[in-house]
């Protein structure tokens, strides 16, 4: 999550500027602390501190201290200002038109990602794991669904808020493959702490394959066990969740069509393991108190069915 290093054309100039102002700041701290320390020790009155015994001495006016410090500071402040404006201009827009546009919606407490396309059959909805091609600028449109959230992938880009009633735009780029963690950074309620996501950067070929796979609907149930699971899932979960190709078509919760392709569940809260998944379905409120997903009070067999079914969504 550290942004003292970054990847991609949006991050590099900012990282440089961050190091620059940090170094300047550290230098100022060292100089001023040194001046206070040395100044104090240099001519201090030794003894038990009977202040009124030490005579008052007007001494020199000292105004040149102020003049010099203001003059020197002005130079460095102006340089920082110029640097700021240059970097601001450099990262304002990508160098070429992005080929991929993703509409990201922040909501309590997960992220919806919709890959936009002129061709409706190539529009994809997924959640909490955003894949992007490497070496390509990616255009992000930010939508607020309920309260204000903030979209942040420290290794790739700074924050932009998702605000209800307005659409914010930004872009990012990863110049090497990797999994970059992101997190909501505008306080948004109970589970603000558990609203993470991942940006997965892949070489363009792999990205295209991923995209093609994700666009597929879920495979039809291959066995009676799985069919039973699908029925249970549709009955209990389908009002909120979508699994494309089935009757589960709810839109207020993450699309689970390819759940098994994601590495975490509950917006980056838990690793996507069978045990965690069972625990989460059985009692989400214990793991993420206040989360919008209710406790469903599934029986043991029902839970087993749902889990068997979910394991097929790859």
């Amino acid at each position: 999550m550290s942004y003292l290093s970054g990847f991609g054309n949006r991050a590099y100039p900012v990282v440089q500027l961050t190091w620059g102002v940090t170094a300047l700041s550290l230098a100022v701290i060292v100089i001023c602390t040194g001046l206070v320390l040395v100044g104090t020790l240099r001519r201090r009155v030794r003894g038990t501190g009977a202040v009124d015994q030490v005579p008052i001495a007007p001494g020199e006016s000292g105004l040149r201290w102020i003049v010099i410090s203001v003059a020197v500071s002005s130079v460095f402040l102006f340089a920082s200002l110029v640097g700021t404006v240059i970097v601001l201009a450099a990262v304002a827009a990508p160098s070429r038109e992005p080929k991929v546009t993703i509409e990201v919606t922040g909501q309590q407490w997960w992220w919806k990602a919709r890959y936009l396309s002129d061709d409706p059959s190539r529009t994809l909805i997924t959640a909490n794991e955003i894949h992007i091609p490497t070496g390509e600028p990616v255009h992000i449109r930010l939508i607020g669904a309920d309260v204000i959230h903030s979209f942040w992938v420290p290794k790739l880009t700074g924050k932009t808020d998702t605000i209800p009633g307005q659409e914010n735009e930004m872009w990012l780029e990863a110049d090497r493959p990797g999994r970059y963690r992101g997190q909501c950074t505008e306080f948004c309620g109970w589970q603000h702490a558990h609203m993470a996501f991942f940006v997965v950067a892949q070489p363009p070929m792999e990205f295209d394959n991923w995209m093609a796979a994700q666009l597929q609907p879920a495979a039809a149930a291959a066995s009676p066990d799985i069919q039973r699971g699908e029925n249970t899932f549709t009955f209990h979960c389908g009002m909120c969740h979508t699994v494309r190709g089935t009757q589960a078509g709810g839109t207020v919760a993450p699309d689970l069509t390819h759940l098994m392709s994601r590495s975490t569940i509950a917006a980056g809260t838990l690793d996507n393991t069978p045990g965690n998944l069972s625990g989460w379905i059985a009692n989400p409120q214990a793991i993420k108190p206040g989360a919008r997903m209710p406790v469903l009070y599934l029986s043991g067999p029902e839970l087993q069915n749902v889990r068997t079914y979910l394991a097929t969504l790859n």
Partner: protein
Amino acid sequence: MTVSEIERVPEILPVSAAPRRELEEIWKTKPGIGGWFSTVDHKEIGKRYIVTAFIFLVLGGVEALIMRVQLARPEQSLLTPEQYNQLFSTHGMTMIFLYALPILSGFSNYLWPLIFGSRDMAFPRLNAVSYWIYLASGIFMYVGFAIGAGPDDGWFNYVPYAERPYNPGLNMDFYSLGMIFLGISTTVGSANFVVTFLLNRAPGMSLNRVPIMSWGTLTASAANLLVVPSVSLAFFMLWMDRQFGTHFFDVSQQGQPLLWQHLFWIFAHPWVYAIVLPAMGMVSEGLPVFCRRPLVGYTPVALATVATMILGFGVWVHHMFATGLPTLALSFFSSASILITLPSVVSVFAWIATIWLGRPVITTAFLFFASMIVLFVIGGVSGFMTGSVPVDWQLTDTYFVVAHIHYVLIGINVFPVVGALYFWFPKMTGRMLDERLGKWNFWTMFVGMNLAFFPMHLSGLFGMPRRVYTYPAGLGWDTINLIVSIGAFLFAIGVLLLLANVLVSLRGGRVAGANPWDAPSLEWATSSPPPSYNFAVLPEVGSLYPLWEGRLGDAAARSSLAEGAVLDHGRETFSVTPLEGMPDLILKMPGDSYAPFILTVGMSAGFSGLIVHWWWLAAAGAALTALAMIVWLWPERKLAQIAGAGYG
């Protein structure tokens, strides 16, 4: 009333011949419970402000410690998310609104008439009501917290999360109404400071001879008058949205979430300066005394104070860099946020030069004042970093900003305040604070503070977001958070040592004379603690440092402290011309009164009625408030002002 009573030449007497007993009779507060509720003595009110604010500091501190236990290790579940959210919000509300400004108002209330060589603030009853309302609004908001309805959306309280659909409890109602309530106290208090500064100074105290500390409070008060209406309005709109379905911030009805942020930060950024500038003034006042020389650059420092505030009105958007505003607007506010560093450079180097060119005597007060410079610089440069937009896109809402705000508020408010307490405690109580305990106090607080907050810069740079009730292990934040928690407890021990020192010294401290530090300003010319009438004869001022005259190579300057006007026809003090400080009026000051307290009771009832929708109670409270105001403003013959005093 006779003409001679209206056109009166005040009697001039040497201090030894002053009618002290009569003055005491005129100015003293009735003993007992009646006097306690009716006093308008600025010294009493100032001390109450200080004690009350300190209690809130301790409450806010306990809230912080509970949070630090929760955050000491990753994935802990000592607190539920809602408990944590109420704790961090109440912590912010307490420290920023109920501690930071009131403690400074307390010092200014206590000290201003003394440093100005006057007998009271311009509006003594307004002074009393400003304290009572502060207390009542603080209790009001804490009642909410106590019944589980404390604020839970941060002190900044962003909509839509603060709106009813997302926040159905009473939490936001307590916070909204409480903030409007507190705003009344701030507003009347600020008006009182501004008028007092302009009119209630000693004869001869022209604008270039006012003690440096008063510039901070003056500037802060003027700013508050301009910006408090903005936040009161915002909270009123929110309350209306919540109660009556107005749509100021309701997106579904074309309301604007960003409107809240603008209204809030237009207030809240100047507020940050309001809660540090008076404290910087106290450093400018106290530090030179321990360096045994005048402050370097009185005029530039005073101008820098005012300049900070003026620029401070133009930087609020740097809290909103990530909201998607256009690049040009961002550049403007980024420039302003970077340039506002310059006036601070003036102050910092004025203090450093004062230390270098003086002969520092290392007392506890000196340690707090001098270390404040270092903390100020750390908090200042981190602020400068957040002023740079692209860098801020990364820094904002991470622990880096938590570190920044605590260096600013503890460094530039708490440290000067504690230093000021060591400095002025002898004046207030007649006894010195213990120096040995004081050194322990200082070092524990200083080490604790840096241990608690410096590492937060790192967790911020390592990407830890703020306002999270827990965090996953393994992201490089674990050890840092443990260190921070340990530092927080060490700092708390430091605060306890201060408390211990105060309690011990109140009884057993060394007895202080009138001027134990050989300091230059007028409060040190009267006894410790001062009599109810402050000065037996009102001093006349001839220089910036009346008590150091003759030792600064300023042969021409001669203040008159041993002889002056008595003004003993009832409660009286001088009013002067704002610039030159020429006396032009003998002010008739009001006596003690129950009206401020009763007015506050009425308002408290009114706001309580609004909370629970008992409209009859709200109406009854308003009626009582109106009644108290009528009694308060009822004309009194003895308060008829005396014009054209032919003084001097």
